[in-house]
């Protein structure tokens, strides 16, 4: 995890703009084959997962209830074969997605770094180092996460939900309606929770970086702290920061602890209803016992992915915010100082000015006014008559 965190970032309520997303996904273009392979593999895994449930149903209905041992052996052999196929698919999808993730990270870092080499000195004078570091280390991470695991999780969840919905509708559509009606409540709850948890999590990361900065400063300046006898007061100042960290961190953990049980309770109500109505239907022969068990399993296969999708959505906000910052950096043009008609490299200008202008703040504001006169005069001075060591744009 990167230690650089921009204080001003709080990626809440970031509208998900489609053009940013498009540009984000275009970074995948060189690696589309790996992505495709990964998606295919995960779809296979998802479909096979759904099929396991059908097998379990058949084992109960055709094997146990009908007391057919041969059928059981046959069915479990199929089960075993599917396990192997699925194992291979899992290998592929983990490998391909992971590989693609690393490639994307590598590409983003490379592009950012190379672009930074082109930027003008004035950019670096006005942009804090920590801000730039955040872009290259932590933002690229978030973008890569969304492009890889975000896509995969969404694919898995989508297939899972669609297939399971199809299955439960086929098994018994009346029961299925009960389940599908509870979905909007579930989705809403899951989304709300996720966003709140992320909000507090981001606050705690902010607090964490403040704390770390304070600690860093205290250690670096320990001589001054000791000389000025600031130990007690600095401790009190620090306690304020560590308290802020505690509050937001605990809140995030508290909400996390509350999240799953809440979802479970919502699903429990619909499960209870299923068991009640389903039990009645078993009596009426409208559904087998195996079918009921399968039904319950499929419900789980809808509910868990929904929580996942909520997480992916929250991650997407993060990733979009990160992408915007990274793209703004990539879009920053190399500065005017590097024009081909520049007489002096910007570096020599700065050295001259630091010798002549007493104040750093005044210097930068008078830079442009002075640079013109200096380049005229300096071309005649023996002191400055050296081969240009600055950048000559090629």
């Amino acid at each position: 995890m990167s230690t650089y965190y921009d204080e001003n970032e709080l990626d809440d309520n970031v509208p998900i703009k489609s053009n940013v997303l498009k540009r984000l996904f275009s970074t995948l273009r060189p690696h589309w084959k790996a992505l495709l392979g990964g998606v295919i593999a995960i779809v296979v895994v998802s479909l096979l997962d759904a099929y396991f449930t059908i097998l379990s149903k058949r084992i109960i209905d055709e094997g146990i209830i009908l007391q057919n041992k041969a059928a059981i052996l046959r069915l479990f052999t199929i089960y075993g074969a599917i396990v192997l196929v699925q194992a291979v698919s899992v290998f592929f999808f983990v490998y391909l997605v992971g590989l693609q993730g690393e490639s994307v990270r590598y590409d983003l870092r490379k592009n950012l770094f190379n672009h930074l080499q082109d930027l003008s000195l004035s950019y670096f004078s006005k942009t804090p180092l920590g801000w730039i570091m955040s872009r290259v280390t932590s933002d690229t991470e978030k973008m890569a996460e969304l492009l890889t695991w975000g896509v995969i999780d969404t694919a898995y969840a989508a297939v899972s939900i669609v297939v399971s919905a199809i299955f439960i509708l086929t098994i018994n559509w009346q029961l299925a309606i009960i389940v599908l009606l509870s979905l909007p409540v579930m989705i809403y709850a899951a989304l709300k929770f996720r966003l709140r948890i992320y909000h507090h999590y981001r606050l705690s990361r902010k607090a964490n970086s403040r704390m770390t900065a304070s600690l860093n400063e205290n250690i670096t300046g320990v001589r001054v702290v000791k000389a000025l006898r600031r130990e007690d007061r600095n401790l009190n100042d620090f306690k304020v920061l560590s308290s802020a960290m505690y509050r937001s961190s605990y809140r995030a953990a508290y909400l996390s602890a509350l999240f799953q049980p809440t979802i479970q309770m919502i699903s429990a109500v619909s499960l209870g209803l299923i068991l009640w109505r389903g039990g009645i239907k078993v009596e009426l022969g409208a559904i087998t016992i195996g079918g009921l068990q399968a039904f319950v399993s499929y419900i789980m296969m809808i509910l868990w992915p929904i929580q996942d999708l909520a997480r992916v959505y929250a991650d997407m906000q993060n990733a979009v915010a990160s992408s915007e910052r990274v793209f703004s950096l990539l879009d920053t043009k190399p500065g005017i100082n590097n024009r081909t008609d520049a007489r002096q490299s910007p570096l020599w200008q700065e050295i001259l000015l630091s010798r002549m202008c007493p104040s750093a703040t005044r210097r930068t504001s008078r830079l442009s006014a002075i640079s013109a006169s200096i380049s005229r005069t300096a071309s005649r001075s023996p002191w400055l008559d050296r081969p240009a060591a600055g950048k000559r744009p090629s």
Partner: protein
Amino acid sequence: MKKPYSEYPPLDPNAVVASKNGLTALWRLMSGSHGDYLLSAWPRAISATARAGLYLFLGWFVDHILKESRFGSELLLSAAGFVGLILVQATSSFLSNQLAAQTAESSTRRLRDMLFDHIQRLSFAYHAEVKTGDLLERASSDVDTLRRFISDQAVGVARIIAIFIINFTAIMQLNTRLALVSIIIVPVILVGSILFFRKLSKAYEAYQEQEAVISTNLQENLSGVRVVKAFARQTFEIDKFEKNNYEKYKRGRKLNLMHSLFWPISDTFCAAQLVGSNILAAFMAIDGVITLGNYISFTGLLGWLIWPIRNLGRLIVDTSRALVSLKRVTEVLRVAQEPLLEGSYIPAQGVQGSISFDHVSFAYEKDRPVLEDISFECQAGQVVALLGSTGSGKTSLVNLLPRFYDVTAGKILLDGVDLREYPRHYLRSQIGIVEQEPFLFSCSIRDNITYGITREVSQEEIEQAAREAAIHDVIMEFANGYDTLVGERGVTLSGGQKQRVAIARTLLINPRILILDDSTSSVDMETEVEIRQALQTLMENRTTFIIAHRIQSIMSADLILVFDQGKIVQSGTHDRLIQQTGIYRSIYEIQTRIDSALQEEIDRVHVL
């Protein structure tokens, strides 16, 4: 359930450090939260039991309700019972996680506070040796590892073990033979996952190390962007970064391969166990040894028995890493703090400032003497200049005055009393230090100037100090004046401006003794004039020790000490020393030559 922070007992570093092993130390760290943590264990057990109960209930439901066609009120009651069980499970799960989180967060908060305070009170010698980055990592990321251990991993281990025991017991109730057959794979999976996660841990560390390498590479490149451009080293930098970047890619790829092999392979093993047990259970169900309901319960229980074992392996490896972090933290806690209040002499009428060194020797380590047999005297209010090459002992000598270090032989007398009789805390209130590279804190200019003052200071006093330091006008030019923030979040001051703020800071403290660490050698010439004026004001009526590199700064000193390899080789006033052949005269002559040459060059540019 949440106690206010003040009710928690403060952590005692010695108690933590005295613990024999890691886990005991961790336990001591959580003092005040012990009740909460243990309390969180019960809901966890209840949650695991409720979950097992759910599957058993499902089985019972199939056998007694569905098969026996009891579809009336019993069905409704059963469904309600089902919901009730889930409610119990959900609530207890929430409670146990919340209590664990509370324990983790409050313990780490106290640990962070304790570490912060401990670190700043460690001796100066320790700080000079230890790298800032290392200390920072121990106090931040190692503490974070401990937090995650307390809230996630320790809880996770307990939870998986609880679930295992409870589910296994439940299966035993159904059928003993089935139960025993079902856990054949468990030791294999457990050992396998421990081995794997250990390897993974190492690969992950390598990956993170490379991330740190990239970070450092990037930081150096960005900090030195002017140098890179001046020497046209962009291609070199790009290539260097490319190597590091690619290396991280390779290590990530290896990590990924390990993951992509482990999960499917262990999946297959677990599935084999499941298939085998299920076949056995199905046959038993057909043969009537167990009921259909039992079979359904069994499949549910078995899943929860087998799949989590892999995570147990991961958690066990994480625990060993957490113990490593704990060790790193306790290593810091073991170091003794600087005794700030040791010493009993506090002069009633304040410090005058006459200092004498009486055959003082000092060494950082046994056989590397830094100062040898230093003796001299100075009266209150005099200026003592220390001159000599880098490493000749000047800085070490002045470090002895605020008792950052203590002498190893001889003694220093302040107003006739041995320095060691003065408590460090009091002593430092009487000594002001202006460093060569002054350190300002990232707060407002006003806060920086009043940094050493404990009492209330009026704005006039602050402005007065700033005027005497020749920085007031500059401050008023900033948009927010004295409230302007210093640092990356605010304005970046030039070297000369920082110097003057530091001087204002020292003026406000009004110390009797002053240490100036060659404050003017690193700024440009225009600013130097202003600073010199400010320094003159500062030095009035204070005993001053100046460490100088340039003769110009110290020509008017009352006593000049010339150092060479830890000994005083010449001492006296400027006029006397200039007549002696020796280091002083040589330095004087060289510097005068350089100064006039430089002046000529600058005059030429000015003329244009």
